[in-house]
């Protein structure tokens, strides 16, 4: 049985919810997650009693656990579980629904990492951890910095070229009422921004903040009875990878290649069918890897391909039209699915931000700490 037979086209997102993003000092991570779920349930027209699945991604530091959230919600769903990453959460929810194991599944995330000052700067990156700090290696952004330095060597990429990502995301975030960082950024501003880990500058990094998101998924049949325009999953891909920085093949997110092969093969779609791309970037160089590995441009050319506004809101391929993890919000991929659904429903809050003629969207997810990747293609309607 293939993904096309079993899952694709058989699962819809019928509700999305968001809390304000930024600082939520009066709320616990669990409370933020439940707040987001209240919003998503209201959006879908469903109630908590309709849920027979509840999937939670605990936030960094272990807050937001299924047991605490389930208890506070006062629900007893058939399936309740933690999963480590947003892409895995959505895909598991989809498989529960497609298999008949569950009919209505809520996916929930909340964090108060900014308020808790639970950050990554001093964290060591990889499994050789007890050597990292001896040599001064800290902050997962170091991985992306090594990546871009190598791209500068391998393909002649420049720091100025990388600025196109931050400039595009800042322009998008400026129009997004949910975005935490909305100040404009020109290329000159970018080049004037201080280095954090050269060749990367401050605006090449994501910044931790508080917030939560939730989604409600169900079958197209159940979706037909609901008051909201569904968004359907029409493609899925995944590839785990545990490569370390030391591995000869670790620099450019190679796990995205087999991920893309599954994604395009099972969906019957290709890069030419995608109207907008959401990359969980964490750090701007990751946008370039995704563009190449998913086939939007040739390997080694993304730094050229993104120039002249190509990935901006009105470009050929809008990338992270919400501002991304760097400028919109630190929500480890959850903000991608939320915004993709809003955009596909034609509900971007400001007309200037609404992408025209949007039918098919690709969301890719990865992490700064390890190299596993997930991908989903969404289409408006059931």
């Amino acid at each position, binding site marked *: 049985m293939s993904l096309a037979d079993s899952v694709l086209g058989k699962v819809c997102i019928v509700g999305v919810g968001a809390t304000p993003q930024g600082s939520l000092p009066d709320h616990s991570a669990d409370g933020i997650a439940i707040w987001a779920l209240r919003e998503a349930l209201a959006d879908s027209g469903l109630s908590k009693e309709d849920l027979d699945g509840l999937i939670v991604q605990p936030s960094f530091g272990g807050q937001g656990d299924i047991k605490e959230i389930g208890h506070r919600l006062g629900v007893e769903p058939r399936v309740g579980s933690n999963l480590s990453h947003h892409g895995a959460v959505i895909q598991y929810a989809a498989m529960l629904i497609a298999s008949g194991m569950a009919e209505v599944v809520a996916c929930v995330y909340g964090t108060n990492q900014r308020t808790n000052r639970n950050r990554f*700067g*001093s964290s060591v990156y990889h*499994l*050789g951890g*007890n*050597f*990292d*700090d*001896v*040599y*001064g*290696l*800290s*902050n997962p952004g*170091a991985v992306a*910095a*090594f*990546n871009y*330095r*190598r791209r*500068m*060597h391998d393909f002649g990429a420049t720091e100025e070229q990388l600025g196109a990502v931050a400039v595009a995301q800042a322009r998008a975030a400026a129009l997004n009422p949910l975005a935490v960082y909305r100040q404009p950024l020109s290329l000159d501003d970018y080049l004037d921004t*201080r*280095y*954090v*880990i*050269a*060749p*990367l500058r401050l605006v090449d990094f994501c910044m931790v903040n508080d917030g939560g998101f939730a989604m409600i998924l169900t079958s197209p049949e159940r979706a037909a009875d609901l008051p909201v325009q569904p968004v359907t999953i029409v493609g899925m891909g995944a590839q785990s990878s545990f490569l370390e*920085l*030391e*591995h*000869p093949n670790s*620099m450019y997110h190679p796990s995205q290649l087999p991920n893309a092969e599954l994604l395009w093969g099972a969906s019957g779609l290709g890069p030419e069918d995608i109207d907008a791309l959401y990359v969980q970037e964490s750090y701007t160089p990751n946008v370039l890897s995704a563009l190449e590995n998913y086939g939007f441009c040739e390997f080694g050319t993304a730094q050229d391909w993104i120039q002249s506004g190509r990935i901006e809101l009105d470009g050929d391929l809008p990338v992270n039209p919400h501002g991304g993890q760097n400028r919109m919000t630190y929500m480890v991929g959850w903000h991608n699915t939320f915004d993709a659904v809003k955009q596909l429903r034609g509900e971007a809050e400001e007309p200037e931000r609404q992408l025209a003629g949007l039918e098919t969207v690709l969301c890719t997810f990865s992490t700064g700490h390890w190299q596993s990747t997930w991908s989903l293609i969404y289409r408006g309607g059931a």
Partner: protein
Amino acid sequence: MSEYAKPLPRITELNEPHWEGAKRGEFLVQRCTACGHIWFPPSPNCSDCLSEDYEWTALSGTGTVYSFIVYHQGWLAGYRDELPYNVAIIELDEGVRFINNLVGVDNDAIEVGMRVEVVFEEVAADVVVPRFRPAAS
């Protein structure tokens, strides 16, 4: 010599031979006695054939800079006081890659592909940390 404020190696049963080797001026890594694969940093088993039988072998200590970064913001004790400082991925001639620092070269003069060689720095009493400098020739 001012006191060394950077993090010191945390010696474990697994990694001790590497740090002991450094005191003798050797850069030791694990080598699988079943399939010959070499790897670093230390891990309890060979990631190629999963054997737990390995020996420690001294590598040449010469290689190239695979990639490098320069910290302008610091989070770790000692390093925080020496901004900007570099961290490099070194690829030894035997093919093993690992994280290290480049010494004896300005950060602005570091290049990917630069030839480097190991130097053993005694950073505290009975503690030797291998680092890398531009190769002599």
